[in-house]
C-alpha cells in the first residue's frame, strides 16, 4: 500500500466479528449518516452530494452515480426502486463479496440513504446464486437492522419507511447486466431488455429504477460522512472520486482484494506493491486489467495509471477493477479458449451475433488448439469477433469479442504456432 494512502473498506475486512451491528456502530460511525440524512437533508441534497463526490459506478461501466440517480423522475406517481447489483460475476471480480461478508451494514446504510434520495421504499439486493453464505450474512445483517429500527417503518424516528429484500439469482452471468437482472428479479427469463427505455424510466416492474453496484452503494455513507468534495479529493485523477477496491488475481505472490485511492497507482505499482510481484519470480507476460472481458495488455503496457480514462486511452478498460496477472508460462491461446468458453456458455441466446458467434469463436479456437484449423482461421476468428462486438443487444457480445480481438492482436505468433504445427494440444 502506498504511504499515507487512505482506505475506507479494507481495514474492516478479514475478521468475522467485524460484520456485526455492534462493530459497525462502534468503529464505522454506523447509521449516523442515515440518521442525519433522514432527519436533516432533502433527497436533492443527497443527490447533489453524490454528484460532487465524482463517484463512478463500480460495476464495470463506470457511469457517474449521482447522474444516474438524478435521472429518476421526481414527479412520477409510480413507486421507485433502488436495486443493488450484487451479481458480481465478471470473472476475476470478488470485491463485493468482501463488502457483503465483512461490512454488510455499510451496504444497508448506503441503501437507506440511496433509497431516500430517489424516493424508494422497497430496495432489492440481487445477489448471485453462488453467494450462498454471503446471502445468509446479508440477510442476518438486514434482520439485525430491522430489529434495531434501522429498517422498516419510521426509520430512526423519521417518517421514512424502507424495506430491503435480498433476491438470490440462479447462476447466470447475464443477470449481472442491469436489465437482465431486472427481468430475473421480476421472475422472468434472465435476458437483457432493449434500451431505451432505460431503467431510470422503466426498470423493475416497469417503474423508475436505479441499479447500482454493491461497492457504489457502500460508498454512499462515506460520501455523506466526508462530504462530496472531500470524498472526490480521495481520487487522484479527474472525474474519479473515492477509493477503488481491486480484485487482484493470477500469477502474483499475494492475490487478494486491495484498496487504493482512485488513480493513485499504476498497474505496475499495483502488481508490485499489492501483489508482491510475479509469483515465483517468473516474468510477466500479460495483464487482463478489468475483468476477463477487458482487452489484454502486454507486459510493457502496464505503466499506466489504473483508472477509467487512462486505461481507455490505451484501448482497454477498468471494468470491475479485477486484475488478472499472467506469467510467461501461460499459453495465451488456451487462456483465450477458456475465456471464450465462458462467454459462449453465458450468452443468454436472445440476440443473433452473441448466440451464434460466441459458440463459433469457441469452436474455431478449439480447432486451432487441436490442430484442425485452416490457415485462414485466425483471420476468420477476428472477423467473427468484429461481427459480434458493438452489434449485440447488450454488452455481453462486446465482452466476448474484446478478449478475442486483443489476444490475437497482441499474441498472434502464439496462434500461428498452433497452425504451423509447432504447438499441439496435449
Amino acid at each position, binding site marked *: 500500500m502506498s504511504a499515507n494512502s487512505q482506505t475506507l473498506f479494507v481495514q474492516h475486512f478479514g475478521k468475522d466479528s467485524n460484520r456485526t451491528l455492534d462493530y459497525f456502530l462502534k468503529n464505522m460511525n454506523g447509521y449516523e449518516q442515515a440518521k442525519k440524512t433522514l432527519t436533516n437533508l432533502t433527497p436533492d441534497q443527497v443527490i447533489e452530494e453524490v454528484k460532487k463526490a465524482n463517484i463512478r459506478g463500480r460495476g464495470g461501466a463506470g457511469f457517474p452515480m449521482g447522474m444516474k440517480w438524478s435521472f429518476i423522475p421526481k414527479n412520477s406517481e409510480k413507486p421507485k426502486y433502488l436495486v443493488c447489483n450484487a451479481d458480481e460475476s465478471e470473472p476475476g471480480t470478488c470485491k463485493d463479496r468482501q463488502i457483503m461478508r465483512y461490512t454488510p451494514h455499510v451496504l444497508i446504510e448506503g441503501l437507506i440513504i440511496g433509497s431516500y434520495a430517489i424516493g424508494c421504499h422497497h430496495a432489492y439486493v440481487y445477489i448471485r446464486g453462488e453467494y450462498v453464505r454471503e446471502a445468509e450474512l446479508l440477510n442476518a445483517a438486514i434482520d439485525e437492522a430491522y430489529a434495531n429500527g434501522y429498517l422498516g417503518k419510521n426509520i430512526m424516528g423519521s417518517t421514512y419507511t424502507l424495506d430491503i429484500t435480498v433476491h438470490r439469482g440462479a447462476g447466470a452471468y447475464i443477470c449481472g447486466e442491469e436489465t437482465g437482472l431486472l427481468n430475473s428479479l421480476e421472475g422472468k*427469463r434472465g435476458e437483457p431488455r*432493449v434500451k431505451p427505455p432505460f431503467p431510470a424510466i422503466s426498470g423493475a416492474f416497469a417503474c423508475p429504477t436505479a441499479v447500482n453496484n454493491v461497492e457504489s452503494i457502500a460508498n454512499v455513507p462515506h460520501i455523506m460522512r466526508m462530504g462530496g468534495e472531500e470524498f472526490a479529493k480521495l481520487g487522484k485523477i479527474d472525474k474519479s472520486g473515492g477509493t477503488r477496491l481491486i480484485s487482484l488475481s493470477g500469477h502474483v505472490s499475494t492475490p487478494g482484494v486491495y484498496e487504493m485511492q482512485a488513480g493513485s497507482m499504476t498497474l505496475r505499482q499495483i502488481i508490485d506493491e499489492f501483489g508482491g510481484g510475479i509469483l515465483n519470480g517468473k516474468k510477466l507476460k500479460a495483464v487482463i486489467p478489468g475483468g476477463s472481458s477487458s482487452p489484454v495488455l502486454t507486459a510493457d503496457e502496464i505503466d499506466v495509471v489504473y483508472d477509467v480514462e487512462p486505461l481507455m486511452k490505451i484501448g482497454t478498460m477498468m471494468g470491475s477493477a479485477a486484475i488478472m496477472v499472467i506469467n510467461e508460462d501461460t499459453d495465451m491461446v488456451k487462456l483465450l479458449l477458456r475465456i471464450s468458453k465462458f462467454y459462449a456458455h453465458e450468452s443468454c441466446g436472445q440476440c443473433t451475433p*452473441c*448466440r*451464434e*458467434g*460466441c459458440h463459433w469463436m469457441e469452436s474455431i479456437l478449439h480447432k486451432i488448439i487441436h490442430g484442425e484449423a485452416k490457415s485462414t482461421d485466425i483471420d476468420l476468428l477476428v472477423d467473427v469477433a468484429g*461481427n459480434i462486438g458493438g452489434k449485440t443487444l447488450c454488452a455481453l457480445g462486446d465482452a466476448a469479442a474484446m478478449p478475442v480481438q486483443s489476444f490475437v492482436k497482441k499474441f498472434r505468433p502464439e496462434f500461428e504456432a498452433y497452425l504451423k504445427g509447432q504447438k499441439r494440444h496435449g
Partner: protein
Amino acid sequence: MAKCTIDGKEVEFTPGENLIKVAKRAGVDIPVFCYHPGLTVVAQCRMCYVEVEKMPKLQTACSTNAAEGMVVKTTSEAVKKGREGTMEFLLLNHPLDCPICDKAGECDLQDNSFGSGSAYMRHSEERRTYVDVDMGDVIQKNMNRCIHCTRCIRFGDEIAGIHEMVAIKRGNNIDITTIDGKQLQTEYAGNYSDICPTGSLTLKDFRFKKRAWMLKKTDTVCEGCSKGCNMEIQHEGNAIYRCVPRENLEINKYWMCDEGRFNYHYTQDPARILNPVQKVGAAWSKITWDQGLSALKSETNAVNTLFLLGTDLTLEEMSAIRETVTRNHKNAKLLSFGTHGVETSAQDKSQDQILKMKSKTSNLMGAEKLGIEALQGKAKADVVVVFRGGRAQLPAIESKKTIGVGVFLEKEVTSFDVILPGLAFTEKDGTVINHQGKEQRLKRAVLPREKCKAIPEVLMLLLNQKTREVLA
C-alpha cells in the same frame, strides 16, 4: 411535421415511429426477422442495422425512433457488413433444406439471405440439431430451422393471450418450445406459422401440398363470424390450398383465428351437393335445373310458404331474394337465420376478447340493415325455402316440403326434398357488413363447380321459364 433523412430522401414522421416504418414511406425496405408491426420490439435478430449519423455504433432500426433532423443510411458499407454478419450467424445452424421446406418461396430467411447475405460459407462445424415436440393438430415444428426471433413467443403472450411458447436453455443451446413440451392450446395457432420467418413452424394442413410460388392470391373477407377478418385465399387450378390473414388495422390487425382459417374446407368437401337433386325415397337423385326450379316455383305457390335467408349471404343476394319474394309471393314470410342464440346484432358480442364473435355468420348486420327479421325458434310452414351461403346454422324445420338453395353438405339436409346448389363465399363476389358496420367485399377466388349457380342467376331463371328451358 418533423422530418428526417433516409438514404438522402427527406421523410416526414410522427414522433414515436421507428425507422423501419419511416423508411418504408421513403421507399426503403429494411430487412427484419424479429420485428413485427403487431408485436413488441425486442431488437434480437440484429438484421435491421442502419447507420445513424453521430452515433458510433450501428443501430437497429426497429428499436430506434426517428428524430428531427436524423440522418440515416441503410446501404453504407458498415450496414452491409453488419447485415452480412448477422445472415452468416443465422445460417451457421440453419439446415438450408429449402427444397423440402414449405416456407421456401415466402421465407424471410431466404429473401434476406438473397438480399443481404454472402454467397460463401466460412463455417465448417457440425450444425446444431434438436428433437422436436408434437405441437398438436395445427402446427408442425422444425426447430432446426428456427432462428430464435421469438415472434411466436410474443404472439402467444401479447395477442393470443396465452403464455405457451417459451425459450428454454440458453446461448447456443436455446430452444424455442412449448411449456413442458405440451401441445398448443390457442385457437389462433395458425398465426404462429404466418409470422414465423423461416420454416420452423409450418401448417400441418398445408404441408407438402403446394409450393408457395405457385399459389394465386385473392383478397377477400373471412365468413367465419361477424368480425369480418380480412383474408387472402391462396389457390391454384381452381382448388384452395390455404387462407391467410390480411392486414387491416381497424378489424383484425394481422391475425385470424383457426376456425376462420380452415373454414374454407367445407367448400371442397366431397359431400357438398354440387348438382340439383331431389329426394327419391331416402336417396338423392340428380335432376335438371329446369326440374328443380319448376318444383320450387310450383311449391312456393302454395298458400303457406316461409322463405329463410341465411345471414351468411351477401347483401346483393339478400336484396335480390327479398325483391323476388315480396314481388312474387305476396303472402309468404321472409326471415333470416344464422347462429342459434345470436339472432340480433345486439346479442352479438366478442366471444373471446380477441377476434372471434358470437355470430358465426358474416352478414348479420347486413340482414338487419335490410330490415329482414330474424326467425325465432322453429321454422314452421307448409313449404320452407332455405337460401344459404354455406355457414349459417340450419334451424329446426317443420314443413311438408323443404327446398334448399345454396351450399349444403349431404349430411346437413337429410330432411330436405330438393336442393339447388349455389356458390360458396370463395366462389362469388359480394358485400358483407361486419359487426362494426363496416362494408367489406368478398371476391371470387375460384370458379363455381359442376352445376352450382349464383343466387341472382337462380332467381332470374325462376322468373323466366323460356330461358330456363333453353339453358337446361
